[in-house]
């Protein structure tokens, strides 16, 4: 981790969002936008700049589902397991993606840092169930087969 760069980027974020406590979530979101996760080095720095204890900031970061303290893959795949997707069989899609990528419940990111597979409780795209997103882009009416095709397409693009 290049801390100098992290501090510079964080300074820019703080200048934009503000250093009051009320900006906390926006600041963490902006840092995560840059790095796709929250590097541990950012906590002491934010503590100093925002005048809040590290524990307090860590408490906020770990409370919310969307903040990750682990680096994620280049492609973050979120399989929706909201009610509508669940009743239209989203779990076989998740299982298929995991087996295709060698992932499991506690292992969300591939070793080559290419793919992260997680579930999300509802994307609000219930009319398109079952749905998943790849880096925020919604893919509607998925099946296990279509999910594999999607992975293959992404792999081809990378090759």
């Amino acid at each position, binding site marked *: 981790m290049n801390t100098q760069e992290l501090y510079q980027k964080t300074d820019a974020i703080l200048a934009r969002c503000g250093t009051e406590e009320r900006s906390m979530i926006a600041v963490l979101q902006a840092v995560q936008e840059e790095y796709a996760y929250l590097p541990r080095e950012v906590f002491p720095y934010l503590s100093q700049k925002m005048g809040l204890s590290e524990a307090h900031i860590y408490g*906020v970061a770990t409370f919310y589902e969307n903040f990750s303290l682990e680096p994620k893959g280049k492609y973050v795949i979120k399989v929706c397991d909201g*009610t509508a997707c669940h009743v239209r*069989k989203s779990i076989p899609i998740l299982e298929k993606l995991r087996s295709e990528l060698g992932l499991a419940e506690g292992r969300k990111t591939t070793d080559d840092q290419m793919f992260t597979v997680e579930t999300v409780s*509802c994307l609000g795209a219930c009319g398109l169930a079952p749905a998943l997103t790849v880096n925020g882009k919604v893919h509607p009416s998925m099946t296990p087969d279509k999910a594999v095709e999607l992975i293959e397409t992404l792999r081809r693009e990378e090759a």
Partner: protein
Amino acid sequence: MIATRQELQSLREACMRAAKAESRKILVCAGTGCVSGGSLDIYAALKQKMEAKGIPCEVELAMDPHEDVVGLKKSGCHGFCEMGPLVRIEPQGWLYTKVSLADVDEIVERTMAKGEIVERLAYRQNGKIYEKQEEIPFYQKQTRKVLEHCGHIDADSIYEYISIGGYEAFEKALFDMSSDEIITQISDSGLRGRGGGGFPTGRKWTQVARQKATPKYVVCNGDEGDPGAFMDRSIMEGDPHRMIEGMMIAGVAVGAEDGYIYVRAEYPMAVARLSNAIAQAKKLGLLGENILGSGFNFNIHINQGAGAFVCGEGSALTASIEGKRGMPRVKPPRTVEHGLFDKPTVLNNVETFANVPTIIKAGAEEYRKIGTETSPGTKAFALTGNIVNTGLIEVPMGTTLREVIFDIGGGMRGGADFKAVQIGGPSGGCLTSAELDLPLDFDSLKKVGAMIGSGGLVVMDSHTCMVEVARFFMNFTQNESCGKCVPCREGTRRMLEILERIVAGKGREGDIDLLLELADTITNTALCGLGKTAAGPVVSTIKYFRDEYEAHIREKRCPAGACAKLRRIHIDPALCKGCSKCSRICPVGAISGTLKQPFVIDPEKCIKCGACIGTCPFHAIKED
């Protein structure tokens, strides 16, 4: 920049003239659903093709009206997501469904150049072709009031909103009404909070207006976290100004100068549309200081959530805006006294605010003409699950479930029988065929132990296991429990454990009573709404489907054939043709065999997901 009331009025006239001049329009749906189906590419292709053909088209509402221009718009969600991408043609009112890039040429050449309908793109049901959107059964039975403009105007243009009478209600509230008069109208209209609780909005506003402490705040709850609900998302994306106008009226009524919109992070498009709408309103001078020279100041800020369902609860939501962990606190004091930054706060949901301009404009009496005595107005519902027409609908309060599911929803998908509908998400309950004629309003639902909630309706057919549904919701609530109070933190975990063992075939005698006892304790002692309602799905499924629980516990059998661990799946060698289709769909590689020979399932590897059953063309895969 408009600085006076007169300038707003002349701008409105100019916008109306401009809208009228655009006699022909193509509206491409740019809601989340249609965008994922490629509607933005269709939009770009239409633009290119029309320009190539020399048909003048305007993307922006042109302020100097000229004849024969075609308006090409990106609209908000039509709600008929199942049939997307959707393209609406005006003035004919035609709706083209499942449009693809390949259809663009024909649309331009026939519809735009010659005014002919492309019949194959029109909606069909039971062999009948429906040309006009309003004639389609899905729309015909609806009463679209809050959603009236969703899909019919460009969601990214404040001028279009003004052209259909936007900000007229705000203007009226600001100049012609006193704070008391506004609140009286809202109270008399009988508007009740659309976020779930159904608390009278007028009473809330009265309480905030009465507070001495300043500043006061207006907060909009756009943290629509219920799985299976997307009404608020569609309003924020499809008609953002309407909701903003509602917030501004609330600001005038209670004397607040700052508004906050809390939107969940899963709705990036809603955030983008709202940000754009706020920037436009600010630029025009409808937000900011000394609005229209009235001396009234109002600004709106957007806060993005970070993935915590509990933040939909009022005090957790305000804590989250303050930059803290989103945990609820003990009430009273209520949000109306000690809300955001410990100040008096009006906290309403998106749909509630979207109702406000209509009430102010048309008056309370007019508003009450729709809906029931105690629940006036309409309600938007997200219709999902095993139903033919999934999507977003709006009906008068008091419409029956039967009309919603069978008339609008088109009945059950795949011909299976209706079993139940889950209403109100993880806080609600289920309703069965016995309640099909129950009117959908706040009080009728409360009587049968369900709630409108935010308005998610998940329809389930006979293949859905109700014990598994209860487990699913308990798993969700348990995950989202913030951990502050013991009944919710510990109680939901214990309930989940029991449900997990029941669906795994390890249920014990007495488990049902234990579940009910825990449910009773959590409901009575939890700190916030999330905990108090967490047991809802369990209690209501036990009430209506106790026999299913008993079959799981005593006979280790799932009557719906859905519980994976209680399933035994095998391939009938007499029927299997060895096509290998099942082995390709199997997510865990449990099916193997040689082509043209019967395949076999390895029961050790099989996770009993059932994916193979549906895929076999010879119906050779069976369950015991």
